[in-house]
Structures are given as C-alpha cells and as structure tokens.
C-alpha cells in the first residue's frame, strides 16, 4: 500500500476515523505499526484481519487512547485524539479481547461505572434496555463471577455501549467462543450497525470477516496490505479453477497442452486450470477443445472459487 495513499477514502463517503501515517515502536524496540494510514467510514462494519502480532490491537489501542503513537495522527469525527481526547473518547466504546472484569461486582453496577466514567449522567432506563438487548437483564444483580464466558463477553459489550458511543471497537470479539454464540454475536453486531454505530472489529477468523464485514483490511507486520469492500477483494484477487476429470489416467501432459499452464494431479486422473473469471478471454472453450484434440476423454468437469481465507493466506505469505 502506498505510504501517501489514503486507503478507504472515496468521494461521497463520510469518514469518521482518519488514521494518518501512524507508527508505533515499543520501548522494547519492537515496531508494531509502520506508517499506517486508513480511513474508516461512518456506519460501516470494518474487519481488520491479520495473524497474531500483526499490530491490530496496537492500532485500536492507539485510537482509544491506551497506547501512544510514536508518529502520525488520528482524528475521530474531525477531532484529534490527543488534543481533543475528551471528545474523541466520548464517541468510542471498546470491547477488549481479554475478559477484564471484577469478580464480585454486580452486572448493573459495572455498567453504571462505565457510563459514569465516560461522563454520562446515570440513566437506568437506557441501561435496562441495553441489558435486555444483550439478554442480560435477568442477570443484572448477579456477581460477574457467576456468569458464563459468553455472558461475560456480553457484559463487556454492555460496558462499551453504556455511554452510547457512535464508534465501537471489538478486539477479537469471538475469540474462544462456541459457534452458536459466535452467530449470536454477529447478529448483535449487525443490529448495532443498523442503529447507526460504526463498528471496527479485529479478528483472525476469516469466516467472521466474510460473514459480517462491509470492508476488510488485512494487516501484517504493522502494515496495511489491503483494504477494500469484501466483494471487491473477492472480485479482484479471487481466482477460479476448472477441474477436468479424465476417463483414463495419464502419465504426463500431452505436449499440445503444455502452453495452457495445466496442473496434473499426482494420480494422473485430473487436470486443473486456474483462470481469472473476470477476464473475458479465459479460454475455457479452447482448452476443452484442445483436451479433446489430445485424445483425452472427459469424465467430469467442475469449477471452484478461492475463498477469502485463501486470498488472506496468500497475501500474508507474500509479505513474509
């Protein structure tokens, strides 16, 4: 990604968070972020994908004020996160990756604490609705230690939403949760977006990004490798493969097919042709004709498309 580029910025789209040339080097010397720039759009769900240690948590920690950037600037709704930290932090809610909750505290009290900490007057009507939305209302007077892991994660979301933020950061929201709860969490995230909240989530589950995000950013080694709408990524970087099953296995490719870049399976029974589906001249018809001319008899033909996971793995591999 070009260093002076403004990824994510396009005409007619309102930017809510603007990250400009942010770098972070920790005291240990580890450089977690390298001159990263990114614009986050109002009302979107943005998934930041990356392997462990890619710099995702550092990035959101900087935006939320937990970590200081070494260089660069970040604005939230036009306000600088350092000079105007009260305004920017009031707009942001953060759900951390770890279950960082007091053991003996009651659910309702921990939400009241969060709301007050962010400078909001107590509003038990709002908190009641919030707890109901999170299916925690009947647990409001329970000590946190009596809740299950999934409930604790929802309490953390409740705490992050207690002050009615317009931007919500979810750091690995479904790490270590079961499939059913993960689906519930996704539904909750979609509902929040519908209510006007901009959502940025970090994840290393491709399925999660694929399932709920509008746009996907891929971070590795502190750099933003890619940022685009999920479907555009699939469109631009996705490849299709045509698998040709042969009636009879062959020992080697006929010389007439050598120019097609075909792969022959180890048992000699299948040919694989990789092509760009958006390229009009992919040549499938010509290939099938050439296969027939080579005297090979087709048993079956099928196609497959690369997943976001394959795209992600290839991107990360390229930077290693």
């Amino acid at each position: 990604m070009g260093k002076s580029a403004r990824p994510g910025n396009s005409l007619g789209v309102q930017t809510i968070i603007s990250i400009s040339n942010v770098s972070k080097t920790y005291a240990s010397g580890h450089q977690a972020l390298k001159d990263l720039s990114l614009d986050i759009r109002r009302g979107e769900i943005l998934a930041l994908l990356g392997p462990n240690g890619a710099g995702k948590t550092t990035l959101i920690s900087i935006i939320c004020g937990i970590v200081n950037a070494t260089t660069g600037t970040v604005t939230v709704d036009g306000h600088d996160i350092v000079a105007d930290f009260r305004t920017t932090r009031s707009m942001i809610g953060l759900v951390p990756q770890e279950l960082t909750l007091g053991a003996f505290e009651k659910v309702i009290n921990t939400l009241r604490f969060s709301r007050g900490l962010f400078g909001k007057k107590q509003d038990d009507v709002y908190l009641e609705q919030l707890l109901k939305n999170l299916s925690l209302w009947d647990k409001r007077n329970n000590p946190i230690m009596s809740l299950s892991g999934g409930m604790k994660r929802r309490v953390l979301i409740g705490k992050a939403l207690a002050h009615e933020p317009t931007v919500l950061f979810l750091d690995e929201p479904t790490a270590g949760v079961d499939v059913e709860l993960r689906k519930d969490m996704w539904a909750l995230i979609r509902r929040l977006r519908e209510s006007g909240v901009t959502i940025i989530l970090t994840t290393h589950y491709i399925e999660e990004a694929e399932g709920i995000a509008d746009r996907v950013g891929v971070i590795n080694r502190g750099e933003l490798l890619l940022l685009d709408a999920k479907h555009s990524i699939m469109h631009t970087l996705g490849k299709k493969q045509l698998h040709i099953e042969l009636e009879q296995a062959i020992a080697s490719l006929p010389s007439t097919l050598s120019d097609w870049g075909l792969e022959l399976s180890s048992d000699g029974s299948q040919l694989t042709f990789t092509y760009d589906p958006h390229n009009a001249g992919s040549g499938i018809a010509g290939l099938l004709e050439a296969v027939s001319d080579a005297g090979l008899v087709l048993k079956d033909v099928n196609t497959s498309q690369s997943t976001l996971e394959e795209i992600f793995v290839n991107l990360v591999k390229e930077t290693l």
Partner: protein
Amino acid sequence: MNIHAIKTIYKYEMLRAWETLLQSFASPVITTSLYFVVFGSAIGTRIQQIEGVPYGSFIVPGLIMLALLTQSTANASFGIFLPKFTGAIYEIMSAPISFIEILIGYVGAAATKSFIIGLIILLTAGFFVPLKIAHPFWMLGFLILTCITFSLLGFIIGLWANNFEKLQLIPLLIITPLVFLGGSFYSVDMLPPAWQTITLFNPVVYLISGFRWSFFEVADVSVGLSLSMIVLFMLTCLAIVWWMFKTGYRLRQ
C-alpha cells in the same frame, strides 16, 4: 473537568470499602483497641506520665497516625493496583478523563476512608482513656493532610507495583517501622541523644509530633516544622505522581 467520572471512581471505591466493611473499618479499629489494651491498660499503668500526659492518652495520636498511614497507603495502592492487575485499567485509560481526575477519584476515596477510620479510632480511644483535644481544628487539619499525603504515596506504590509482593513491600518494610520508630509510643526526648538525632531523619516523627501537639500541646519538634514537613512530603508525592502521569509510567506505553 469530568465531574461525573471523578464521582464515579470515588463512589466505586467507597462502595468497595462498604462491601468489605469488616476488613475496611472494623479491622483497624479492633487492632487499635488491642494496642490500647496492651500499651494503655497493661503497660501504661506501670509507666509514669510523659510530659504531663497520662501514658494511655499520650499514645492516642501515635496510634491514630499508625492506622492512618497504613490504611491510607493500603487503600490507595490497592485501589489503582487492582484494575491494573485484572486488566480493567483499559477502561479508565480509554475514558474521557484526565490523569488529575483519576488521581482525585482514587486518592480522594482512599483519603476519605482513612479519615473515617481515624475518627472512629479517636472515638474508640475515648472509651479507654480520658481525651482532651486542645486544638481541634489543627487536629482535623493534620488528620486531613496526613490522609491525603499518604494516600498519594499509596497511589504511587499502586502505580509502581507490578505484583502483589511489591504492593506490600513499602508499607510493611518502610512505613510500619517508621511509624513505630517515629514516637508513636514514646517521646523522642526519652531516647539517648544520638538516637534523638537519628530519629529526626524519620519524617513520621514530624507528623506524630504535630498531631500530638494538637491534642496535648506537647511536641518533640515545633508545630510549624511539623506542618512544613508534611506539606513538603505532600508536594514531593504530587511531583512524583505528576512525573508518572507525564511519562505514562506503567500506565500508557
């Protein structure tokens, strides 16, 4: 200023004390009562008056100071250490609240708790020994200043400590010995001359001396010097906290 946030931290910390009532308030009162039984009743009957004050009454200011210093540091250090330990500090660090407001919330609550404990011990002492407070406003002034100053010290310890051992290190190995050697149970005049000089390097001597003066008008050092020393100590703690906040020491990388 984020008044709501200050009130929230203050109320949260006070609620924590209320929910652990026995540990927060009853424990120091019981401990101090035992001191009165041992030193005031058992040993005190065999000791002459000190500077015209019955021994049982003489030790009251020192015992209050002992409780204030240990409780202030323990309350404030634990208050800020706990969210650091559990990881819940992320919420405070990401809230629209300045370091000064965080300080007021935590130190204010710790100082309030210590102040209440000090008053309870004072009332308890009234059951064991006759008490007369010569300068009640000075007494309250010393009480409040000491609570704030040692809560600041506790806050520094809580920020500095990155494990439970460090959290206990300074209170157990430095503060408690300094209080015991600071004239809680005796007058500095009773010590040999060389030890009197050494004792003057103990800052707690000035606190106890000034506090005792407000009760009985007897002091080891002048009340002005006592007041100056406690203000100096408070300013030193404030300077350290300011540096910690400025650099983000153990809070913000």
